[in-house]
Structure formats: structure tokens, C-alpha cells
């Protein structure tokens, strides 16, 4: 991630329950200030003159209390603490909730020091939780992977493999079968909430395009409709395609869980060898369904092996039973 500025925060295109409803009231030249930490601060103590342990690099939130205090300060003609707060250029911005407006003094000082003044119509508590959520997404650990991310039966499948192995072709057929494309070629992966990997298209402005050898670049949204795309999806399964190597032994049973780590999060991992005549999309579809079964607690390979073991056990018991003489047989009774 590059510099994340106050202007980037204003431009965040979040929808519905995530929307921040921000607008800029003043201090526009300061919009280029960088937001360095995913945190916020209520500057009540600082306004009253106590600057010890003050977190200047955080976004400063002014709610009803702080705004009322600003009005009190203005009536008393006090502006020293406001000046002390606004003159720091490590403060990224000040933000008023509830649609509140700053006092004239405050506004003039903010303009003087080029400190951006933002406003939202949301109540403080709701806004703070939305802002923390948005910022922790932005500041989450991230990396870009070469691969294709598709949603198959509700499971986010990241298809990896060398160039030319057929990732995009497999994804195209999956889209054609009614599944959804999230990103082709460059998948941006973010680790959110510590253990969830979210995959995005690396560049949202370029939209959902794919490069298919022989066809060139195609627009998936226009060709297959909005039902064929998704903006982001949790990565729940990694399928690595590789050219069939006859010397290598591939998993034949699938009873052991293989995982692969991305950004410190373990994700179920499958290695699928590719050779002409193998229908990779069907294999990926089946892998996704199998993954869903596993999430429901049913492990095909394990259950199968359980039945084999049970069957062998009964066979064993039965043969032993037939070999031994029955102690309650009529012969025994007559001799006894």
C-alpha cells in the first residue's frame, strides 16, 4: 500500500452499512496529509490543556461533548489549546460527527494551519466503529499474488500456477458454468481480523477483464453479465495447477488435510496436475463442493476409509467366528 491520505479517506467508496458519509468543511490544502495509524482519538483532554500521552497521529473525533466544550471555550475567549492542537502537522485531520460544525475560532485556526476539517452525519459511536473497520481493512497486511480468484458454489477458490498452465482458461469455463470471477492474474490479498484472507482485484478501476490466449483481453462483465463477477471474496481454498509430472506422486486419497500459508493464515490447499483431456473446471467445482462438505463436518476420504475399516473388521470377526467351533453347539451338549 502506498501513502494513505485524508483525501483517500474521503474518496473511499464504501456502501450502505459501511458508508462513512464524509465531507470536507475546510483546511483543504491539508487533504494531502498522510494517515499513518488505523486509530482515532477523542481530544477532550487535549482541549482542556492536558497533552500528556496525546495521540496526535490519530484522526481526532469531535462528538457532541467536544463540540459543546469548543463553544464554551469560544464564549470564554480561550483558544490556546485549540491552537496547540491544530498547529501540529502530525494531526491528519479533525472530524465532527452528528453533522456538527466547528466554532468560528476553531474553523479560522484550522484554515490557518491547513488542518482538514471533516464532517459526517453519523452519530459518534456508529461512526467510530465504521471508521475502525474501514481503517483496519486498509492497514491490513497485504500482498499481490499471480493467480485467479473465482467464487465457486460460494467458496472462494484461488487458482495458482505458472504462466500458460491454463488458470485463466479454467476460470473462464467456471464463469461460463455460472460461477463468479473476482480477479484475474493479479489478486490482491488482505489479511483482516487476524485470520481471514480477502481477495480483491488488484485495480478496481480496470474492472473484471481476462486475458485468454488467442482471444486477447475480454470484458467478463459485458460478456457474462453482473451475475458473473464479484468485487471481493474470502479465500477458502487454494488450487495449484501444474503440468503433469509422471515422476511426482500426487495425492490419491485426500485423507490428510494439506494447507498453505498466505500472510500467516493457513488455507486448504490442493495440487492438481494438468494434462490434455483432464477437465480442470469440473475438478475445481468438485473440490469446492468437497470443501463445503468438509465445512459441514463430512470428510469424504475419511468417511470412506472409516467404512473400509469397519467392513474389514466385520469380515475379520466373521471369518474368525466361522473357524472356531461354537461352544454351544449340539455336539458339545451331547458329549457333556
Amino acid at each position, binding site marked *: 500500500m502506498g501513502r494513505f491520505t485524508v483525501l483517500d479517506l474521503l474518496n473511499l467508496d464504501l456502501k450502505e452499512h459501511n458508508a462513512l458519509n464524509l465531507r470536507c468543511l475546510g483546511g483543504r490544502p491539508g487533504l494531502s496529509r498522510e494517515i499513518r495509524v488505523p486509530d482515532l482519538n477523542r481530544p477532550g483532554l487535549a482541549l482542556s490543556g492536558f497533552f500528556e500521552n496525546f495521540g496526535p497521529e490519530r484522526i481526532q473525533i469531535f462528538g457532541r461533548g467536544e463540540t459543546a466544550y469548543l463553544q464554551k471555550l469560544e464564549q470564554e475567549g480561550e483558544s490556546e489549546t485549540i491552537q496547540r492542537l491544530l498547529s501540529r502537522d502530525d494531526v491528519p485531520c479533525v472530524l465532527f460527527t452528528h453533522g456538527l460544525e466547528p466554532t468560528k475560532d476553531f474553523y479560522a485556526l484550522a484554515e490557518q494551519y491547513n488542518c482538514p476539517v471533516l464532517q459526517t452525519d453519523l452519530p459518534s459511536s456508529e461512526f467510530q466503529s465504521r471508521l475502525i473497520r474501514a481503517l483496519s481493512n486498509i492497514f491490513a497486511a497485504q500482498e*499481490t499474488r499471480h493467480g485467479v480468484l473465482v467464487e465457486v458454489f460460494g467458496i472462494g477458490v484461488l487458482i495458482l500456477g505458472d*504462466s*500458460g498452465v491454463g488458470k485463466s482458461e479454467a476460470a473462464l469455463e467456471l464463469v461460463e458454468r455460472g460461477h463468479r470471477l473476482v480477479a484475474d*492474474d493479479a489478486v*490482491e490479498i488482505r489479511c483482516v481480523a487476524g485470520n481471514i484472507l480477502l481477495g480483491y482485484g488488484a*485495480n478496481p478501476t*480496470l474492472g473484471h477483464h481476462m486475458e485468454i490466449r488467442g482471444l486477447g*483481453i475480454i470484458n467478463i462483465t459485458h460478456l457474462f453479465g453482473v451475475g458473473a463477477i464479484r468485487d471481493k471474496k474470502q479465500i477458502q481454498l487454494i488450487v495449484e495447477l501444474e503440468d503433469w509430472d509422471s515422476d511426482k506422486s500426487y495425492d490419491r486419497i485426500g485423507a490428510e488435510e494439506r494447507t498453505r500459508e498466505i500472510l500467516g493464515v493457513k488455507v486448504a490447499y490442493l495440487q492438481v496436475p494438468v494434462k490434455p483431456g483432464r477437465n480442470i473446471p469440473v475438478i475445481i467445482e468438485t473440490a469446492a463442493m468437497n470443501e463445503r462438505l468438509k465445512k459441514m463436518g463430512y470428510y469424504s476420504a475419511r468417511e470412506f476409509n472409516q467404512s473400509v475399516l469397519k467392513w474389514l473388521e466385520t469380515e475379520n470377526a466373521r471369518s474368525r467366528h466361522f473357524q472356531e467351533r461354537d461352544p454351544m453347539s449340539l455336539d458339545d451338549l451331547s458329549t457333556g
Partner: protein
Amino acid sequence: MTERDVVIKNRAGIHARPAALIVQTASKYKSKIAFRNEHEEINAKSIMGIITLGASYNSSLTIRAEGEDEAEAVDALSKLFEDRFEEE
């Protein structure tokens, strides 16, 4: 491993045609080749990847190659940048 910094010298930046040229050149070599900017690294054999880098006029990239023919690959690719992708 061979690395070299290059600057995009054609006005239009890396759009579809230069990207295709890069991919075609990179695919001739066996080495693993990647382009890196400040915050991401992208496989040089993937056309969509290169376009999404959004490399514009005068910005710089690092070419990194690893493999048996890495030196030749980096030479051939940096020559494309020098030649402004046969544009202009």
C-alpha cells in the same frame, strides 16, 4: 538473481500494447521474471498483471529475473524500455 531498475520513457505509459510486448519477450525465457514497484510485485509473463501495475510516464520499475537465462532476459526487457516499446 539479476535486478535492474528501468524508467518508463514513452508518454502513454504501459498500456495494452507495451504490456503485450513485454509478455511476449518475457515468455521467451525460462527464468522467473517479475516487475516490482513500491508496493507490489507482479509476474512479467502475465499481461493483466502488468497492466494493473499502472506504470505511467517517468515512473520507475525494477525488473527481477531468476533462472538459467536471467541476464539475457533482463537485457532484452530493459532494451524494450530503452526503445520506448517501439512507440514514438
